[in-house]
């Protein structure tokens, strides 16, 4: 069993939760109040993540997946538990499709997408083979670099003189309606419901007690980070262009032009995104193979790497013929899709309540 330290878990989850949201303009439907929508989503999302951590706390030694059969009984719990790896596989296919749409549009127009994705998946397979410990060390090193690059970009944007903070006023221009539309359910699912996949990493951590605290810190940090990026994008572009841009963060980097000397930094944005997507895909696939290992009682998870990666690649390549449909699925279908809602909210809450009651009973009878 690999062990990761508390700091490694923090870095993994920060990068994971910031994820691919900033590229696509999280909560863009809320217009100039998107930063507020993000903060509200963070508030609720942190509560959801806390519920996930409490579940593992009430079932010590078990991974999240094993809690379902344990608490609900084998007949009911096992199918529910099996839905999780399927969901993770589907979501990782979605991220692969995201990359398939982003990289050819922006920096590598002529390269066929399957080549880009093939190499991407090869690296991920190697990462899966090496285990979560290696990934923890990797993110420990890379998170400061990513934050540094981000800070540099922010400084350069401010020095380009394109920021107009009065674009953010008036606040709540069109009322709270827009904000609530974005927060529930899409806002909470997008970064915080997806932290469910991290639940399978928590048992690898050496200090079981501080999982909750670590996850709360990382959720709050990621939320503030995304909110700040959204606010910056609105102040540079204004509300209308922000809503219309396909990749707002990428356009933000394009706007950097400091004394005509520092311009054309597009590639850094794409590298940024690629690494975030890499880690997210890695965590989802890791969650998948770990769940598979636990559900089939295998000795090691390595035999599942090859089939899972191939399936994810296949899903990503065939998922959407163009960007428009892909984004339409996110906005129209996913918020109302029963899988997301049940696996991320309904079942965890039930599990939480049941575990809590059982915990109380067992401590009461001792």
């Amino acid at each position, binding site marked *: 069993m690999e062990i990761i330290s508390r700091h490694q878990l923090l870095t993994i989850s920060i990068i994971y939760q910031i994820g691919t949201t900033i590229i696509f303009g999280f909560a863009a439907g809320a217009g100039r109040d998107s930063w507020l929508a993000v903060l509200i989503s963070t508030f609720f999302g942190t509560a959801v993540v806390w519920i996930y951590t409490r579940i593992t706390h009430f079932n010590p030694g078990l991974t999240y997946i094993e809690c379902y059969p344990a608490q609900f009984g084998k007949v009911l719990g096992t199918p529910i538990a099996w839905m999780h790896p399927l969901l993770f596989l589907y979501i990782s296919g979605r991220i692969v499709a995201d990359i398939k749409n982003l990289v050819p*549009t*922006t920096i*590598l*127009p*002529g*390269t066929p997408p399957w*080549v880009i994705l093939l*190499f991407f998946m090869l690296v991920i397979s190697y990462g899966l083979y090496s285990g979560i410990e290696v990934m923890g060390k990797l993110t420990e090193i890379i998170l400061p670099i990513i934050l540094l690059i981000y800070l540099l970009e922010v400084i350069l944007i401010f020095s380009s003189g*394109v920021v107009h903070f*009065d674009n953010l*006023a*008036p606040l709540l*221009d*069109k009322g709270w309606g827009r904000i609530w539309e974005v927060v529930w359910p899409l806002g909470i699912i997008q970064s915080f419901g997806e932290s469910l996949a991290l639940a399978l990493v928590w048992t690898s951590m050496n200090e079981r007690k501080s999982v909750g605290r670590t996850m709360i810190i990382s959720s709050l940090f990621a939320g503030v980070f995304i909110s700040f990026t959204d606010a910056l994008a609105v102040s540079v*572009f*204004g*509300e*209308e*262009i922000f809503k219309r841009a396909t990749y707002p963060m990428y*356009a933000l980097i*394009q*706007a950097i*032009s400091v004394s005509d000397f520092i*311009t*054309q930094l597009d590639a850094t944005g794409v590298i940024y995104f690629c690494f975030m997507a890499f880690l997210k895909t890695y965590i989802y696939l890791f969650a998948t193979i770990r769940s598979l290992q636990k559900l089939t009682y295998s000795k090691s998870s390595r035999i599942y790497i090859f089939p899972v990666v191939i399936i994810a690649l296949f899903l990503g390549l065939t998922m959407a013929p163009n960007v428009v449909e892909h984004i339409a699925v996110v906005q129209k279908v996913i918020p109302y899709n029963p899988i997301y809602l049940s696996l991320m909210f309904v079942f965890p809450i039930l599990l939480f309540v049941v575990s809590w009651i059982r915990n109380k009973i067992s401590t009461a009878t001792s």
Partner: protein
Amino acid sequence: MRKQLTIFLSLSVFMYMITGCWSRIELNDIAIVTAASLDLVDDQKIQLGVQVMKTKMTKGTAGKGDSSEDTTLIFSEQGDSVMDAYRKIQKKIPRNLIFSHNRIVIIGEKLARSGITPIIEFFSRYRDVRGNSYLLTTKGKAYDLLNVGPNFEKFSAEEIREEQKARVIDSATIRDFAFRLLELGIEPITSQLQIIPAGEKATEPSSSEKKNKNNELALALVGVAVYRKDRLVGWMNAQEAETLLWLRNKMKDSVITVMIPEENKLFGKLSVQLMKSKATIKSKIENDQVQFQVHLEMTGDLFENTTKLSTNSSNNLHTVQRLFEDEVEKRVRLTIQKSKKKFKTDIIGFGSKVHRQNNKVWNEKYADRWDEEFSNIKVNVTTKFTIIGTGRINDSLIWEEKEMKK
């Protein structure tokens, strides 16, 4: 041993694949577009002209810095849309056109009057284009402006861009233009570019002289083109355009001259270079009429004084300051009047100020019909002018001379 061998072999194979060379375009396969011009020609076709940098890979650096040789080439083609024309030009050139270093986009008058949304569309969607290029409008055909040779820089597009950055006149990049187009309550403008002779004015040079002294023509920003939504409605001259800069707080520096009239025995002219200018616009809605209070605060240095006013006494400075305040107020009022009555478009952004400050009333009443409502607004302008310094001498030379004659 076997393990190390397999690693070594696979590394050497993979090394070739990660160099990112699949869809490479080498430097001598690209043609960098530095300026683009768009015109509407007969039967609704768009003529796209591009100014392309000539990069010769032979000869070395000696051939490039030569001033008599042109470093740019001009191409143009007509097409049904911008992309269509772009593709047709591509057929004429052996290299790929790259728009990422495009500095300016010039639009001809006919195209501007019929709406430039299609142009903005192309420049917002296409892959390489950045929103940093400046938009310019011109009377007549835009294509003619590309032919003027550069005076200071290597190509004329760079010169124009430097002029725009000096912010003598209000300017708009494509991003700014799109922002103002979509935002309710403020209308877009661009700078106006014309060819004028660099030396003296107007006596018609003979045509042969024009051809020989081609480099004495300069491209100059002579004013501002006013747009309503995306159609051109009129022009404003340079002085009025300057006041636009003041009102939008974008001024870098500027010069104002006032004249003391001849009846006064201290007659002459005073010129001040403005260093800082700040405008605050407050909106107030009273009885269904929108009122604005515009307050301008300016500071400047006095650099030229041909009156007999001694600049050494502070009383005189107060008089001079009041003179400038009146002048500034007059100019601002004139600009606002012109945009209200003549153009009926809110290029200063009064509407967006109402939006920001009283957004409920804006959303209910004015958002949809600000165009009509704008002509009925009342604006009150107050200014405060401070002269900080008077240059390197503190008293008038003329005054001294007069003293000595006695």
